[in-house]
Protein backbone atom coordinates (compact mmCIF):
# COMPACT_ATOMS: atom_id res chain seq x y z
CA UNK A 1 0.00 0.00 0.00
CA UNK A 2 2.27 2.75 -1.26
CA UNK A 3 1.57 6.36 -0.33
CA UNK A 4 -1.60 5.48 1.56
CA UNK A 5 -2.52 7.11 4.90
CA UNK A 6 -1.76 4.94 7.90
CA UNK A 7 -3.05 4.95 11.46
CA UNK A 8 -0.52 5.15 14.27
CA UNK A 9 -1.86 4.47 17.75
CA UNK A 10 -0.15 5.92 20.79
CA UNK A 11 3.20 4.32 21.51
CA UNK A 12 3.69 2.85 18.02
CA UNK A 13 6.52 3.51 15.56
CA UNK A 14 6.47 3.03 11.79
CA UNK A 15 9.32 2.97 9.35
CA UNK A 16 9.58 3.87 5.68
CA UNK A 17 12.55 3.60 3.38
CA UNK A 18 12.26 5.22 -0.01
CA UNK A 19 15.58 4.59 -1.71
CA UNK A 20 18.36 6.11 0.40
CA UNK A 21 15.97 7.96 2.71
CA UNK A 22 14.95 6.23 5.94
CA UNK A 23 12.07 7.68 7.93
CA UNK A 24 10.75 6.74 11.36
CA UNK A 25 7.56 8.23 12.77
CA UNK A 26 6.47 7.70 16.38
CA UNK A 27 3.14 8.63 17.95
CA UNK A 28 3.23 9.44 21.66
CA UNK A 29 0.14 10.55 23.64
CA UNK A 30 0.76 14.23 22.82
CA UNK A 31 3.19 14.30 19.94
CA UNK A 32 4.26 13.09 16.56
CA UNK A 33 7.98 12.44 16.41
CA UNK A 34 10.00 12.06 13.23
CA UNK A 35 13.52 10.96 12.49
CA UNK A 36 15.25 10.82 9.10
CA UNK A 37 18.58 9.42 8.02
CA UNK A 38 20.05 8.80 4.61
CA UNK A 39 22.05 5.83 3.38
CA UNK A 40 23.42 6.52 -0.11
CA UNK A 41 24.53 2.91 -0.40
CA UNK A 42 21.00 1.52 -0.56
CA UNK A 43 19.21 3.44 -3.33
CA UNK A 44 17.00 0.52 -4.37
CA UNK A 45 15.40 -0.35 -1.03
CA UNK A 46 11.68 0.17 -0.57
CA UNK A 47 10.01 -0.26 2.83
CA UNK A 48 6.45 0.90 3.42
CA UNK A 49 5.14 1.51 6.90
CA UNK A 50 6.87 -1.41 8.60
CA UNK A 51 7.45 -1.94 12.30
CA UNK A 52 11.24 -1.92 12.12
CA UNK A 53 13.11 -1.12 15.35
CA UNK A 54 14.30 2.40 15.90
CA UNK A 55 18.11 2.78 15.73
CA UNK A 56 20.02 3.67 18.89
CA UNK A 57 20.66 7.31 19.72
CA UNK A 58 17.85 8.74 17.66
CA UNK A 59 17.41 12.49 17.81
CA UNK A 60 13.65 12.79 17.34
CA UNK A 61 12.07 15.96 15.98
CA UNK A 62 8.91 16.56 18.02
CA UNK A 63 5.61 17.91 16.72
CA UNK A 64 2.64 18.77 18.93
CA UNK A 65 -0.27 16.54 17.92
CA UNK A 66 -3.97 17.23 17.70
CA UNK A 67 -5.69 14.95 20.27
CA UNK A 68 -7.32 11.82 18.82
CA UNK A 69 -5.65 12.37 15.44
CA UNK A 70 -3.82 9.21 14.52
CA UNK A 71 -3.72 9.48 10.70
CA UNK A 72 -0.35 9.92 9.04
CA UNK A 73 0.40 10.52 5.38
CA UNK A 74 3.72 10.16 3.64
CA UNK A 75 3.38 11.55 0.14
CA UNK A 76 5.87 12.25 -2.64
CA UNK A 77 6.57 15.87 -3.50
CA UNK A 78 8.90 17.72 -5.81
CA UNK A 79 11.39 20.41 -4.81
CA UNK A 80 10.03 23.88 -4.29
CA UNK A 81 13.07 25.44 -5.90
CA UNK A 82 13.84 25.04 -9.61
CA UNK A 83 15.89 22.05 -10.68
CA UNK A 84 18.79 23.02 -12.92
CA UNK A 85 19.51 20.10 -15.16
CA UNK A 86 22.86 19.59 -16.83
CA UNK A 87 23.53 16.70 -19.25
CA UNK A 88 26.50 14.45 -18.52
CA UNK A 89 27.55 14.64 -22.15
CA UNK A 90 26.80 17.29 -24.82
CA UNK A 91 23.39 16.95 -26.45
CA UNK A 92 22.54 18.88 -29.63
CA UNK A 93 19.15 19.58 -31.13
CA UNK A 94 19.41 20.29 -34.88
CA UNK A 95 16.70 22.34 -36.66
CA UNK A 96 13.42 20.46 -36.80
CA UNK A 97 14.20 18.30 -33.74
CA UNK A 98 11.10 16.93 -32.11
CA UNK A 99 12.00 14.46 -29.40
CA UNK A 100 11.46 13.40 -25.82
CA UNK A 101 14.06 12.46 -23.24
CA UNK A 102 13.72 11.57 -19.59
CA UNK A 103 15.40 12.89 -16.48
CA UNK A 104 15.16 11.36 -12.99
CA UNK A 105 14.21 13.85 -10.28
CA UNK A 106 14.69 12.84 -6.62
CA UNK A 107 11.48 13.28 -4.66
CA UNK A 108 10.87 14.92 -1.30
CA UNK A 109 8.75 13.17 1.36
CA UNK A 110 5.80 15.26 2.45
CA UNK A 111 4.79 14.12 5.95
CA UNK A 112 1.38 15.26 7.14
CA UNK A 113 -1.22 14.28 9.70
CA UNK A 114 -4.99 14.57 9.94
CA UNK A 115 -7.77 12.44 8.52
CA UNK A 116 -9.90 15.15 6.96
CA UNK A 117 -7.72 18.20 6.65
CA UNK A 118 -4.03 17.24 6.26
CA UNK A 119 -1.67 19.28 8.40
CA UNK A 120 1.91 19.39 7.10
CA UNK A 121 4.58 18.36 9.59
CA UNK A 122 7.64 18.59 7.37
CA UNK A 123 9.15 17.83 4.00
CA UNK A 124 12.33 15.79 3.76
CA UNK A 125 14.41 15.35 0.61
CA UNK A 126 15.25 11.74 -0.14
CA UNK A 127 18.61 12.93 -1.47
CA UNK A 128 20.47 16.10 -0.50
CA UNK A 129 21.00 17.84 -3.82
CA UNK A 130 23.76 20.37 -4.34
CA UNK A 131 22.82 23.99 -4.79
CA UNK A 132 23.01 25.55 -8.21
CA UNK A 133 22.29 28.91 -9.74
CA UNK A 134 20.68 29.92 -12.96
CA UNK A 135 21.08 33.23 -14.73
CA UNK A 136 23.19 36.30 -14.08
CA UNK A 137 25.01 36.45 -10.71
CA UNK A 138 23.13 39.64 -9.87
CA UNK A 139 19.60 38.60 -10.79
CA UNK A 140 19.42 34.83 -11.31
CA UNK A 141 17.67 32.24 -9.22
CA UNK A 142 18.83 29.61 -6.81
CA UNK A 143 17.99 25.99 -7.54
CA UNK A 144 19.15 22.42 -7.12
CA UNK A 145 21.78 20.87 -9.35
CA UNK A 146 20.85 17.73 -11.21
CA UNK A 147 23.03 15.87 -13.69
CA UNK A 148 21.24 13.76 -16.21
CA UNK A 149 22.07 11.13 -18.76
CA UNK A 150 18.99 12.38 -20.69
CA UNK A 151 17.78 8.87 -21.57
CA UNK A 152 15.64 8.56 -24.68
CA UNK A 153 13.76 5.40 -23.74
CA UNK A 154 11.81 4.39 -20.68
CA UNK A 155 13.63 1.07 -20.40
CA UNK A 156 16.95 2.87 -19.95
CA UNK A 157 15.76 4.77 -16.87
CA UNK A 158 17.09 3.93 -13.42
CA UNK A 159 14.43 2.08 -11.47
CA UNK A 160 14.71 3.52 -7.97
CA UNK A 161 11.85 4.29 -5.61
CA UNK A 162 13.01 7.81 -4.77
CA UNK A 163 13.27 8.94 -8.38
CA UNK A 164 10.42 10.31 -10.48
CA UNK A 165 10.84 10.17 -14.23
CA UNK A 166 10.25 13.55 -15.81
CA UNK A 167 9.64 13.58 -19.58
CA UNK A 168 11.11 16.59 -21.39
CA UNK A 169 9.74 17.18 -24.86
CA UNK A 170 11.98 19.29 -27.06
CA UNK A 171 10.79 21.01 -30.21
CA UNK A 172 13.20 23.07 -32.23
CA UNK A 173 11.35 24.67 -35.16
CA UNK A 174 14.09 27.31 -35.50
CA UNK A 175 16.80 27.26 -38.16
CA UNK A 176 19.61 26.95 -35.61
CA UNK A 177 21.11 23.95 -33.87
CA UNK A 178 20.67 24.24 -30.13
CA UNK A 179 23.14 22.83 -27.66
CA UNK A 180 21.61 21.59 -24.43
CA UNK A 181 23.88 22.89 -21.70
CA UNK A 182 21.54 23.54 -18.80
CA UNK A 183 17.81 23.58 -18.38
CA UNK A 184 15.95 25.27 -15.56
CA UNK A 185 12.80 23.34 -14.69
CA UNK A 186 10.36 24.84 -12.23
CA UNK A 187 9.49 21.65 -10.40
CA UNK A 188 6.74 23.42 -8.45
CA UNK A 189 4.65 23.36 -11.66
CA UNK A 190 4.93 19.56 -12.03
CA UNK A 191 2.43 16.94 -10.92
CA UNK A 192 3.47 13.53 -9.59
CA UNK A 193 1.80 10.41 -10.94
CA UNK A 194 2.06 6.77 -9.90
CA UNK A 195 2.91 4.52 -12.82
CA UNK A 196 2.84 0.73 -12.91
CA UNK A 197 6.39 0.38 -11.67
CA UNK A 198 7.64 3.87 -10.85
CA UNK A 199 6.79 7.48 -10.18
CA UNK A 200 6.31 9.89 -13.05
CA UNK A 201 5.95 13.62 -13.27
CA UNK A 202 3.87 15.54 -15.74
CA UNK A 203 5.84 16.49 -18.83
CA UNK A 204 7.72 19.66 -19.72
CA UNK A 205 7.47 21.02 -23.25
CA UNK A 206 10.35 23.15 -24.45
CA UNK A 207 10.01 25.02 -27.73
CA UNK A 208 12.82 27.10 -29.18
CA UNK A 209 12.05 30.36 -30.86
CA UNK A 210 15.13 31.05 -32.93
CA UNK A 211 18.61 32.34 -32.46
CA UNK A 212 17.76 34.82 -29.72
CA UNK A 213 17.70 31.94 -27.27
CA UNK A 214 14.10 32.61 -26.40
CA UNK A 215 12.15 29.51 -25.62
CA UNK A 216 8.77 28.61 -24.30
CA UNK A 217 8.45 26.22 -21.41
CA UNK A 218 5.03 24.73 -20.88
CA UNK A 219 3.97 22.50 -18.01
CA UNK A 220 0.90 20.51 -19.08
CA UNK A 221 -0.76 18.43 -16.36
CA UNK A 222 -0.44 15.09 -18.16
CA UNK A 223 2.58 12.90 -18.70
CA UNK A 224 3.67 10.96 -21.78
CA UNK A 225 2.13 7.78 -23.22
CA UNK A 226 5.36 5.90 -22.47
CA UNK A 227 4.48 6.11 -18.77
CA UNK A 228 1.62 3.66 -19.35
CA UNK A 229 -1.30 3.57 -16.93
CA UNK A 230 -0.88 6.28 -14.28
CA UNK A 231 -2.88 7.67 -11.37
CA UNK A 232 -2.49 11.14 -9.97
CA UNK A 233 -0.63 11.28 -6.64
CA UNK A 234 0.43 14.84 -5.87
CA UNK A 235 -0.80 17.94 -7.67
CA UNK A 236 1.59 20.74 -8.67
CA UNK A 237 2.47 23.13 -5.87
CA UNK A 238 1.56 26.02 -8.11
CA UNK A 239 -0.12 26.21 -11.52
CA UNK A 240 2.18 27.16 -14.36
CA UNK A 241 1.78 30.60 -15.96
CA UNK A 242 0.05 30.24 -19.29
CA UNK A 243 1.54 31.18 -22.64
CA UNK A 244 4.52 33.01 -21.23
CA UNK A 245 7.83 33.05 -23.00
CA UNK A 246 10.72 32.44 -20.71
CA UNK A 247 14.36 32.84 -21.34
CA UNK A 248 16.04 30.42 -19.00
CA UNK A 249 18.80 30.64 -21.50
CA UNK A 250 22.40 30.39 -20.59
CA UNK A 251 20.79 27.02 -20.50
CA UNK A 252 20.42 26.30 -24.09
CA UNK A 253 21.97 29.45 -25.32
CA UNK A 254 24.72 28.15 -27.53
CA UNK A 255 23.63 28.14 -31.08
CA UNK A 256 25.47 26.70 -33.97
CA UNK A 257 24.40 28.27 -37.23
Amino acid at each position, binding site marked *: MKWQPVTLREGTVRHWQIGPCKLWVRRTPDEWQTYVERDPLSPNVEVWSSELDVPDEVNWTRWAAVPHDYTLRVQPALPERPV*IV*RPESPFMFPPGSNLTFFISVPIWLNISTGADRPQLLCEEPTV*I*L*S*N*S*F*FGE*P*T*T*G*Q*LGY*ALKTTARRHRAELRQQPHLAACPIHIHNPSAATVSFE*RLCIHARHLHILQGEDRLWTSKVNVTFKGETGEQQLAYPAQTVDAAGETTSLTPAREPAPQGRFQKPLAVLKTFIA
Partner: protein
Amino acid sequence: MEWFATLLESPRFYSLLRSVILLAVGLPLLQLLATTGKRVAKKHTNEQAAMLVGKAIFYTGVVMLVVMVMQNMGFKLTAILGAAGIAGIAVTFASQTSLSNIISGVFLIWERPFAIGDVIDVGGTIGLVLSIDLLSVKMRTLDNRYIRVPNEMIIKSQVITITRFPIRRMDIDVGVAYKEDVGRVMKLLGEIADANPFALDEPRPLILFKNFGNSSLEFMLGVWFSKTDFLHLKNSIMRDIKERFDAEGIEIAFPHLSLYSGSDTAPFPVRVVKTD
Protein backbone atom coordinates in the same frame (compact mmCIF):
# COMPACT_ATOMS: atom_id res chain seq x y z
CA MET B 1 -23.87 85.57 32.38
CA GLU B 2 -22.57 89.05 31.82
CA TRP B 3 -19.04 87.87 31.38
CA PHE B 4 -20.25 85.46 28.75
CA ALA B 5 -22.03 88.21 26.81
CA THR B 6 -18.84 90.29 26.98
CA LEU B 7 -16.85 87.35 25.74
CA LEU B 8 -19.18 86.86 22.79
CA GLU B 9 -18.85 90.47 21.82
CA SER B 10 -15.04 90.36 21.91
CA PRO B 11 -13.42 89.95 18.46
CA ARG B 12 -10.45 88.19 20.14
CA PHE B 13 -12.72 85.37 21.21
CA TYR B 14 -13.71 84.64 17.62
CA SER B 15 -10.14 84.68 16.34
CA LEU B 16 -9.15 82.31 19.16
CA LEU B 17 -12.08 80.04 18.36
CA ARG B 18 -11.15 80.01 14.67
CA SER B 19 -7.57 79.12 15.57
CA VAL B 20 -8.67 76.26 17.80
CA ILE B 21 -10.96 74.96 15.06
CA LEU B 22 -8.14 75.31 12.50
CA LEU B 23 -5.83 73.26 14.69
CA ALA B 24 -8.47 70.72 15.69
CA VAL B 25 -9.39 70.03 12.07
CA GLY B 26 -6.02 70.71 10.46
CA LEU B 27 -3.81 68.44 12.55
CA PRO B 28 -5.83 65.22 12.12
CA LEU B 29 -6.28 66.09 8.44
CA LEU B 30 -2.53 66.50 8.05
CA GLN B 31 -1.93 63.23 9.83
CA LEU B 32 -4.36 61.54 7.46
CA LEU B 33 -2.72 63.15 4.42
CA ALA B 34 0.73 62.13 5.60
CA THR B 35 -0.34 58.53 6.23
CA THR B 36 -2.05 58.32 2.82
CA GLY B 37 0.96 59.88 1.09
CA LYS B 38 3.25 57.42 2.88
CA ARG B 39 1.08 54.49 1.87
CA VAL B 40 0.96 55.57 -1.78
CA ALA B 41 4.71 56.22 -1.83
CA LYS B 42 5.38 52.81 -0.28
CA LYS B 43 3.63 51.13 -3.19
CA HIS B 44 5.94 52.81 -5.68
CA THR B 45 9.19 53.16 -3.76
CA ASN B 46 10.81 51.72 -0.64
CA GLU B 47 9.98 52.14 3.03
CA GLN B 48 12.55 54.86 3.69
CA ALA B 49 11.37 57.04 0.81
CA ALA B 50 7.77 56.54 1.94
CA MET B 51 8.70 57.64 5.45
CA LEU B 52 10.36 60.73 3.98
CA VAL B 53 7.26 61.58 1.92
CA GLY B 54 5.04 61.18 4.99
CA LYS B 55 7.22 63.42 7.12
CA ALA B 56 7.56 66.03 4.35
CA ILE B 57 3.78 66.27 3.97
CA PHE B 58 3.21 66.47 7.71
CA TYR B 59 5.85 69.08 8.56
CA THR B 60 5.08 71.29 5.53
CA GLY B 61 1.44 71.16 6.56
CA VAL B 62 2.30 72.02 10.17
CA VAL B 63 4.28 75.10 9.06
CA MET B 64 1.37 76.26 6.88
CA LEU B 65 -1.07 75.65 9.72
CA VAL B 66 1.02 77.62 12.20
CA VAL B 67 1.29 80.54 9.75
CA MET B 68 -2.50 80.50 9.25
CA VAL B 69 -3.12 80.38 13.00
CA MET B 70 -0.73 83.25 13.64
CA GLN B 71 -2.27 85.34 10.89
CA ASN B 72 -5.65 84.62 12.37
CA MET B 73 -4.49 85.70 15.82
CA GLY B 74 -3.35 89.01 14.38
CA PHE B 75 0.43 88.56 14.54
CA LYS B 76 2.49 90.52 12.04
CA LEU B 77 4.19 87.87 9.99
CA THR B 78 6.76 90.13 8.39
CA ALA B 79 8.39 90.83 11.73
CA ILE B 80 8.18 87.21 12.79
CA LEU B 81 9.64 85.99 9.52
CA GLY B 82 12.46 88.50 9.83
CA ALA B 83 13.25 87.26 13.31
CA ALA B 84 12.91 83.69 12.11
CA GLY B 85 15.43 84.41 9.34
CA ILE B 86 18.02 85.64 11.83
CA ALA B 87 17.29 82.74 14.15
CA GLY B 88 17.47 80.40 11.18
CA ILE B 89 20.99 81.55 10.31
CA ALA B 90 22.07 80.98 13.90
CA VAL B 91 20.44 77.55 14.03
CA THR B 92 21.97 76.61 10.69
CA PHE B 93 25.46 77.43 11.93
CA ALA B 94 24.83 75.53 15.13
CA SER B 95 23.47 72.44 13.45
CA GLN B 96 25.73 72.02 10.46
CA THR B 97 26.48 68.38 11.27
CA SER B 98 22.84 67.50 11.73
CA LEU B 99 21.89 69.18 8.47
CA SER B 100 24.71 67.40 6.69
CA ASN B 101 23.42 64.10 8.10
CA ILE B 102 19.86 64.90 7.02
CA ILE B 103 20.95 65.73 3.47
CA SER B 104 23.12 62.60 3.41
CA GLY B 105 20.09 60.64 4.64
CA VAL B 106 18.02 61.96 1.75
CA PHE B 107 20.74 60.88 -0.68
CA LEU B 108 20.94 57.46 0.96
CA ILE B 109 17.21 56.97 0.61
CA TRP B 110 17.31 58.17 -2.98
CA GLU B 111 20.36 56.15 -4.03
CA ARG B 112 19.43 52.99 -2.09
CA PRO B 113 22.87 51.39 -1.79
CA PHE B 114 21.35 48.98 0.75
CA ALA B 115 18.04 48.24 2.42
CA ILE B 116 16.82 47.20 5.85
CA GLY B 117 17.89 43.60 6.46
CA ASP B 118 21.05 43.81 4.34
CA VAL B 119 24.43 43.01 5.84
CA ILE B 120 26.86 45.85 5.16
CA ASP B 121 30.49 46.63 5.85
CA VAL B 122 31.15 50.26 6.76
CA GLY B 123 34.83 50.94 7.29
CA GLY B 124 35.45 47.44 8.56
CA THR B 125 32.37 47.26 10.77
CA ILE B 126 30.04 44.54 9.57
CA GLY B 127 26.42 44.48 10.64
CA LEU B 128 22.79 43.96 9.75
CA VAL B 129 20.92 47.16 8.83
CA LEU B 130 18.08 47.72 11.30
CA SER B 131 16.88 51.12 10.11
CA ILE B 132 17.81 53.93 7.76
CA ASP B 133 16.77 57.21 9.34
CA LEU B 134 17.24 60.82 8.40
CA LEU B 135 20.23 61.29 10.70
CA SER B 136 21.81 57.86 10.94
CA VAL B 137 21.79 54.19 10.00
CA LYS B 138 21.29 51.76 12.87
CA MET B 139 23.06 48.42 12.64
CA ARG B 140 23.34 45.24 14.66
CA THR B 141 26.79 43.68 14.49
CA LEU B 142 27.23 39.95 14.13
CA ASP B 143 28.17 39.70 17.82
CA ASN B 144 24.95 41.53 18.71
CA ARG B 145 26.11 45.06 19.38
CA TYR B 146 24.06 48.11 18.40
CA ILE B 147 25.84 50.61 16.20
CA ARG B 148 24.65 54.01 15.03
CA VAL B 149 26.51 55.29 11.99
CA PRO B 150 25.88 58.94 11.01
CA ASN B 151 24.61 59.22 7.44
CA GLU B 152 27.37 61.66 6.57
CA MET B 153 29.98 59.02 7.39
CA ILE B 154 28.21 56.46 5.20
CA ILE B 155 28.08 58.85 2.27
CA LYS B 156 31.79 59.68 2.66
CA SER B 157 33.15 56.17 3.17
CA GLN B 158 33.19 52.97 1.15
CA VAL B 159 30.23 50.78 1.99
CA ILE B 160 30.10 47.15 0.93
CA THR B 161 26.63 45.62 0.75
CA ILE B 162 27.51 42.01 1.41
CA THR B 163 24.04 40.59 0.81
CA ARG B 164 23.09 42.66 -2.24
CA PHE B 165 23.24 39.80 -4.74
CA PRO B 166 21.79 36.31 -4.29
CA ILE B 167 25.15 34.55 -4.54
CA ARG B 168 28.72 35.22 -3.44
CA ARG B 169 32.12 33.64 -3.87
CA MET B 170 34.26 32.37 -1.02
CA ASP B 171 37.97 32.33 -1.80
CA ILE B 172 39.97 29.77 0.15
CA ASP B 173 43.76 29.73 0.04
CA VAL B 174 45.29 26.27 0.17
CA GLY B 175 49.01 25.57 0.36
CA VAL B 176 50.46 22.13 -0.35
CA ALA B 177 53.99 20.75 -0.17
CA TYR B 178 56.28 21.19 -3.18
CA LYS B 179 56.45 17.45 -3.77
CA GLU B 180 52.73 17.25 -4.67
CA ASP B 181 51.39 16.91 -8.20
CA VAL B 182 49.82 20.24 -9.22
CA GLY B 183 47.29 18.70 -11.60
CA ARG B 184 46.13 16.19 -9.00
CA VAL B 185 45.70 18.87 -6.35
CA MET B 186 43.62 21.01 -8.74
CA LYS B 187 41.49 18.01 -9.68
CA LEU B 188 40.90 17.14 -6.02
CA LEU B 189 39.89 20.72 -5.20
CA GLY B 190 37.33 20.57 -8.02
CA GLU B 191 35.95 17.28 -6.72
CA ILE B 192 35.72 18.66 -3.18
CA ALA B 193 33.71 21.65 -4.41
CA ASP B 194 31.44 19.43 -6.53
CA ALA B 195 30.71 17.14 -3.59
CA ASN B 196 29.75 19.92 -1.17
CA PRO B 197 25.97 20.54 -1.24
CA PHE B 198 26.39 24.20 -0.24
CA ALA B 199 28.78 24.93 -3.11
CA LEU B 200 27.00 25.94 -6.29
CA ASP B 201 27.78 23.85 -9.33
CA GLU B 202 27.13 26.95 -11.43
CA PRO B 203 28.93 29.35 -11.63
CA ARG B 204 31.74 26.82 -11.71
CA PRO B 205 34.27 26.90 -8.86
CA LEU B 206 37.40 28.87 -9.62
CA ILE B 207 40.61 26.89 -9.07
CA LEU B 208 43.84 28.84 -9.40
CA PHE B 209 47.46 27.83 -9.05
CA LYS B 210 48.47 31.14 -7.59
CA ASN B 211 52.08 31.11 -6.71
CA PHE B 212 55.31 29.33 -5.81
CA GLY B 213 55.25 30.32 -2.16
CA ASN B 214 58.07 30.33 0.38
CA SER B 215 56.98 27.07 1.90
CA SER B 216 54.25 25.77 -0.34
CA LEU B 217 52.60 25.64 -3.72
CA GLU B 218 49.76 28.13 -3.31
CA PHE B 219 46.31 27.43 -4.72
CA MET B 220 43.03 29.27 -4.48
CA LEU B 221 39.65 27.59 -4.46
CA GLY B 222 36.85 30.08 -5.20
CA VAL B 223 33.47 28.53 -4.43
CA TRP B 224 30.16 30.21 -5.21
CA PHE B 225 27.40 29.89 -2.66
CA SER B 226 23.98 31.21 -1.78
CA LYS B 227 24.34 34.26 0.48
CA THR B 228 22.49 32.49 3.29
CA ASP B 229 24.90 29.53 3.35
CA PHE B 230 28.11 31.32 4.37
CA LEU B 231 28.65 29.56 7.68
CA HIS B 232 27.51 26.15 6.42
CA LEU B 233 29.89 26.32 3.49
CA LYS B 234 32.81 27.75 5.44
CA ASN B 235 32.68 25.03 8.06
CA SER B 236 32.01 22.15 5.73
CA ILE B 237 34.40 22.91 2.91
CA MET B 238 37.39 23.54 5.17
CA ARG B 239 36.74 20.18 6.82
CA ASP B 240 36.24 18.54 3.40
CA ILE B 241 39.60 19.83 2.17
CA LYS B 242 41.46 18.59 5.23
CA GLU B 243 39.78 15.18 5.23
CA ARG B 244 40.17 14.62 1.51
CA PHE B 245 43.81 15.71 1.42
CA ASP B 246 44.56 13.46 4.38
CA ALA B 247 42.81 10.56 2.67
CA GLU B 248 44.70 11.15 -0.60
CA GLY B 249 48.05 11.64 1.13
CA ILE B 250 48.39 15.28 0.04
CA GLU B 251 50.56 17.21 2.47
CA ILE B 252 49.13 20.55 3.53
CA ALA B 253 52.17 22.76 3.87
CA PHE B 254 53.25 24.81 6.85
CA PRO B 255 56.09 27.37 6.98
CA HIS B 256 59.49 25.73 6.42
CA LEU B 257 62.92 27.14 7.14
CA SER B 258 66.00 25.45 5.63
CA LEU B 259 69.31 26.16 7.35
CA TYR B 260 72.71 25.80 5.69
CA SER B 261 75.86 25.78 7.68
CA GLY B 262 78.02 27.67 5.16
CA SER B 263 78.76 28.52 1.54
CA ASP B 264 79.69 24.92 0.72
CA THR B 265 76.42 23.77 2.23
CA ALA B 266 78.25 21.20 4.24
CA PRO B 267 75.97 19.22 6.49
CA PHE B 268 75.44 20.16 10.08
CA PRO B 269 77.40 18.02 12.47
CA VAL B 270 74.92 15.68 14.11
CA ARG B 271 75.66 13.92 17.35
CA VAL B 272 73.67 10.81 18.13
CA VAL B 273 73.01 10.33 21.80
CA LYS B 274 71.98 7.00 23.13
CA THR B 275 69.01 7.10 25.44
CA ASP B 276 67.50 4.41 27.65
